[in-house]
C-alpha cells in the first residue's frame, strides 16, 4: 500500500491566494491551517476501497474566473441544466463564481444565496460561525485540503420563518482539469424556515481530459422546525476523482432530505451523513448510482441519532455495468438516550455483468434499548422472471431490461425537485446505461 503522497498545497501558497482574493483574516488563517494539516493528516479510509491508489492530489492551480454577462455565454451543456425562467441561480466555473442571481422577492425577505467567497466578505460573521462546524477541518486530509483550497462555493441563508417556495439552483462545472475545482457548500436554515436547494456538479466532458481531483464539502444546518431538501447530481469526467462529503446537523423537529445522483464517469467517494441532534428531528436520504467501465465507487449514507424520537430513512440503489464496482455502506448509529428513535436503511445493487462487483454493508450501531431499527440489503442480477414477463407482452429483451433497471432507480429519480435536473438525471441514466 502506497502512502507516499506529495502534498498538494502548502501554507504560504494557500494564504497568498486567500490574501490575493482579499479574504478576511480569519479565513486566511483557516486556509493556512488547512494547508498545514493536509500535509500530515491521512486520507479517509472508506471500507474495502483503496482510494490511496487513485490520483488524489491533482487539485490543480488557482485561476481567477470571470463572471459571464449573460447565461447564454455558458456552455450549451450547462445551459441545458438551468430551470426555465429561474431567478435564483448560481454558477461556478472551475475556481470561481461565473453567475449569481437571486430574486428581489427572496432578497427582500432576507434570504442570502450567493457564492461562499462573496458571503465570507459580505456576511463574514455568519459564515465564520458555521464554516467547518458540521464537518471539522481536521477530520482528515480531505477536509483539511478543502479548507485550504475551497473556492467559489455556495452560501444559502434562510431567515427564521421564511419559506422559499422555488428551488434554489446551483451548477458547478469544470472545463479545465488544470484549474482547482473544490467547492464548499454551506446552507443555514433558521427556525421554521423551508428551502429546497438543487445542484448539478458536472464536467464539460470534451474539454476535460487530464486527471483532476474534486474535493468537495457540503454542510447543512437545519435549525428547529426547519425543512431542507438538498438535491445533487454529479457527472464529472472519467479522468476525475470525486471526493464529496456531505453532512447535516438537524435540530429539534427539523428535517433534512438528501437526494443524490452519483453519476460520475470516474472514481467516486460519496459520504452523506445526517446528525440528528434534536428531539423529533428527521432525515430522509436517497442515493442512486450507475457505474461503468472500471469505475470504483464508495457510497456511504449515515444517520447518527442523538435526539429522542428522531427518525432516519436511507436508501441507496446502484447499477453496476461492465467491470465497475460499488461498495455501499449504510450506517445507522443510535446513541444512548435517543429513546424512541427509529432508523431504517436499504441498500440494493443490480449487477449487469459478470465482472461487475457490488457490496452492500448495512451497519446498525445501537446504544439504546428503546428504539426501532431495520435494514435490508441485496445484491443481484436482473430477475429473469421479470424479463420473461415483459417479453411475453412483446417487449424486446433489451427494452425489458431497460425498463426494469429504470424502475429500480425510479424511487430516487422521481424525487428530484427541479424538472431540468430530473431531465439531466434521466439523460445521464440513459447514456450510462446504454453507453
Amino acid at each position, binding site marked *: 500500500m502506497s502512502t507516499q503522497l506529495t502534498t498538494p498545497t502548502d501554507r504560504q501558497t494557500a494564504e497568498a491566494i486567500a490574501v490575493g482574493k482579499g479574504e478576511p483574516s480569519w479565513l486566511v488563517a483557516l486556509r493556512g491551517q488547512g494547508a498545514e494539516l493536509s500535509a500530515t493528516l491521512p486520507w479517509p479510509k472508506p471500507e474495502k476501497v483503496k482510494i490511496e491508489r487513485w490520483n488524489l492530489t491533482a487539485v490543480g492551480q488557482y485561476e481567477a474566473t470571470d463572471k459571464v454577462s449573460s447565461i447564454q455565454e455558458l456552455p450549451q451543456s450547462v445551459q441545458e441544466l438551468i430551470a426555465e425562467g429561474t431567478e435564483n441561480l448560481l454558477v461556478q466555473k472551475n475556481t470561481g463564481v461565473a453567475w449569481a442571481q437571486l430574486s428581489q422577492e427572496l432578497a427582500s425577505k432576507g434570504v442570502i444565496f450567493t457564492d461562499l467567497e462573496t458571503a465570507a466578505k459580505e456576511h463574514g460573521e455568519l459564515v465564520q460561525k458555521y464554516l467547518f462546524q458540521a464537518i471539522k477541518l481536521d477530520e482528515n486530509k480531505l477536509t483539511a485540503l478543502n479548507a485550504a483550497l475551497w473556492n467559489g462555493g455556495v452560501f444559502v441563508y434562510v431567515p427564521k420563518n421564511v419559506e422559499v417556495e422555488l428551488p434554489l439552483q446551483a451548477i458547478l462545472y469544470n472545463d479545465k482539469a488544470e484549474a482547482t475545482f473544490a467547492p464548499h457548500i454551506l446552507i443555514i436554515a433558521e427556525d421554521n424556515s423551508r428551502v429546497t436547494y438543487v445542484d448539478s456538479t458536472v464536467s464539460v466532458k470534451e474539454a476535460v481530459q487530464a486527471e483532476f481531483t474534486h474535493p468537495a464539502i457540503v454542510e447543512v444546518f437545519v435549525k428547529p422546525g426547519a425543512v431542507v431538501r438538498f438535491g445533487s447530481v454529479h457527472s464529472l469526467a472519467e479522468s476525475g476523482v470525486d471526493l464529496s462529503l456531505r453532512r447535516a446537523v438537524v435540530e429539534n423537529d427539523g428535517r433534512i432530505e438528501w437526494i443524490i445522483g452519483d453519476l460520475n464517469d470516474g472514481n467516486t467517494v460519496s459520504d452523506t451523513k445526517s446528525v440528528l441532534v434534536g428531539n423529533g428531528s428527521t432525515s430522509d436520504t436517497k442515493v442512486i448510482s450507475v457505474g461503468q467501465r472500471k469505475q470504483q465507487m464508495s457510497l456511504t449514507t449515515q444517520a447518527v441519532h442523538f435526539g429522542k424520537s428522531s427518525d432516519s430513512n436511507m436508501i441507496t440503489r446502484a447499477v453496476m455495468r461492465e467491470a465497475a464496482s460499488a461498495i455501499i455502506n449504510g450506517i445507522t448509529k443510535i446513541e444512548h438516550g435517543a429513546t424512541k428513535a427509529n432508523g431504517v436503511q436499504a441498500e440494493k445493487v443490480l449487477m449487469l455483468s459478470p465482472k461487475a462487483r457490488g457490496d452492500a454493508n448495512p451497519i446498525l450501531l445501537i446504544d439504546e434499548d428503546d428504539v426501532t431499527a431495520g435494514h435490508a440489503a441485496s445484491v443481484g442480477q436482473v*430477475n*429473469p*422472471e*421479470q424479463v*420473461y*414477463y*415483459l*417479453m*411475453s*407482452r*412483446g*417487449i*424486446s*429483451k433489451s*427494452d*425489458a431490461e431497460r*425498463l*426494469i433497471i*429504470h*424502475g*429500480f*432507480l*425510479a*424511487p430516487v429519480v422521481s424525487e428530484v425537485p427541479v424538472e431540468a435536473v430530473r431531465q439531466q438525471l434521466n439523460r445521464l441514466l440513459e447514456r450510462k446505461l446504454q453507453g
Partner: protein
Amino acid sequence: MSTKFVIDGLKAEIEGKEILKGINLEIKGGEIHAIMGPNGTGKSTLASALMGHPKYEVTEGSVSLDGEDILEMEVDERARAGMFLAMQYPSEIPGVTNSDFLRSAINARRGEGNEISLIKFIRQMEGKMKDLEMNPEFAHRYLNEGFSGGEKKRNEILQMMLLEPKLVILDEIDSGLDIDALRIVANGVNAMRAEDRGFLIITHYQRLLDYITPDYVHVMMQGRIVKSGGPELAQRLEKEGYDWVKEELGITDETVGQA
C-alpha cells in the same frame, strides 16, 4: 386469413424431467378450448412452453400460428406474432408504472414509427379499465406491485384487451378470484370473442366455464390430452370429478414429473 393455431406432438421437459409427452391440439379463430385436469398433470407447463418460458425445453413436436413456426421465435416475437398468455403468477415490476408498461407493450406490437398517440392510449386504457371495474389509480401504480391476487388477474385481462392478440392462453385465470371478480374477468374474455381470435383456457374448476362457454373441453393427465369432448364433458367432470376418466382409461396416478 382466419386464425389457425396448431400444436403437433409437443414434448417438453424441465430440468431434464419430461412433463409434456406429446400434445396435439388445433384451435381455429372463434373457438374456445378448455383444458381441464387435476393439479400436477402438466397444464401450466403447456402454457409456459407455448409462450417460451426459459425454464422449459421443448424436445419434440411443432407449434404454429397461422403457418408461422412459433417454437423458432423468442418470447417477445411470439407475443408480437399474436400470442398472449395470462399468467397464473404475474411478475411484480417495481418502479415501472402500469401505464408505462402497457404503452411500451402496445408500441412494441405496433412497431417503430407506428406508435400509439398518448391521448388515444389513455382513452383506450381508461375505457378498458372501466369495463373491468378497475380503480383508475391502478394505471399509475407500479406493475403488479402490491396488487391482490384478483387485481393481478384483472390486470392480465386488461393487457389482453389492449394488446388484441390472435391466440389467448388463460392459465388458471380463475384461481384466487371471488365470484364478482370471476364474472368481471369472464365478461372481459367474452367481450374479446371474435372470429379471428382463438382461446385456450386452462383451469381445474368448472366454475369459470359457467361464465365462458367453451366449444371444446380437453382433459389432461400424465402430460397428455386423454379425453376431449364438448361443454357437456366439463359439466360431467364438475358433477362426478375425474375418477371416472381415470377408471375408463386405466390410469392410477394422473400426475406427471412429480418427485
